[in-house]
């Protein structure tokens, strides 16, 4: 892939990646830094991406997710489990920044676990396939459907509570 094409695609993927990073890191500024770092890293070594292995989108989301995990580990370098560490959801300020009209949805999302928030954003917001989600989250493809369903049920319940 040409570097100019890659740049153009990364610009388009930036917002989706930022939404994913926000759900993992809990605030929009750290999320922007994570996406920025991921873009710089990818453009520094564009050959690391092999177009024969699939589209850029899931690959880039995996880079962003790994960067978020690095940042979370740096916050708590005591070897604690990453899934436990990224439980923090965007706080009220972050929620307000994101969008007033989607506040109820964001509030409901913030009540879910990090893993549930991630899987919903990956599927419903970023429109990735189950196979791509399985690769990004490093889980079995068969697990994606059940996890996603549980996450959606939890989100539905939270939305009913808030609306």
């Amino acid at each position, binding site marked *: 892939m040409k570097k100019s094409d890659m740049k153009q695609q990364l*610009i388009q993927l930036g917002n989706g990646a930022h939404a994913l990073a926000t759900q993992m890191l809990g605030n*929009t500024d750290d999320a922007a830094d994570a996406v920025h770092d991921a873009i710089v890293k990818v453009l520094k070594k564009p050959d690391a991406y092999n177009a024969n292995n699939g589209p850029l989108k899931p690959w880039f989301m995996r880079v962003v997710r790994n960067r978020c995990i690095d940042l979370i580990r740096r916050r708590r370098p005591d070897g604690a489990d990453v899934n436990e560490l990224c439980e923090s959801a965007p706080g009220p300020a972050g929620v307000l920044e994101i969008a007033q009209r*989607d506040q109820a*949805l964001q509030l409901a999302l913030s009540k879910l676990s990090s893993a549930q928030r991630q899987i919903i954003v990956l599927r419903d917001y970023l429109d990735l396939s189950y196979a791509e989600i399985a690769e990004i989250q490093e889980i079995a493809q068969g697990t994606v459907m059940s996890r*996603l369903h549980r996450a*959606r049920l939890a989100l*539905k319940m939270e*939305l009913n509570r808030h609306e």
Partner: protein
Amino acid sequence: MNNEDRLIDQHVGELISGFVDGELTQQQRQLVSLHCEQCTQCGENLEDMQALRTRIGKANLSEMGEDKWRETMDEKGVQTSRSIGWLLFIAGMVAVAGVILITFLFNDEIGTGMKFILAAVYGGLLVLLYSVLRQRMIERKTDKYKDVEI
């Protein structure tokens, strides 16, 4: 409830999500369709899941615009051009200093004593500059608090 119904009832739950996402086999799709026609609860669940998916898909979960990420790319270009600028500037300054040094050393109009004094002054300044730079480099490498965010 017969065995087939029980099987359908057990599995249709998460299959609803697979159905909404278009990730089921033809056989599974038929199973979910048939079940949801008969079961009001699962039918409502299916509608809710479809609505939820549409809502999240249309939501704006990031306040950043594409310009933000375009700036990230430009920033790298700016950094590269700045590095090239500094490199050229330093190379030019070293060349100028070399020419001045050679002119100074081979100038017969300046006495040896004066050459020695001026060489000591500028040489001393260079040693001091080197010492400060070296100290800064060591501090940068060994300062364990450098990553602490205030």
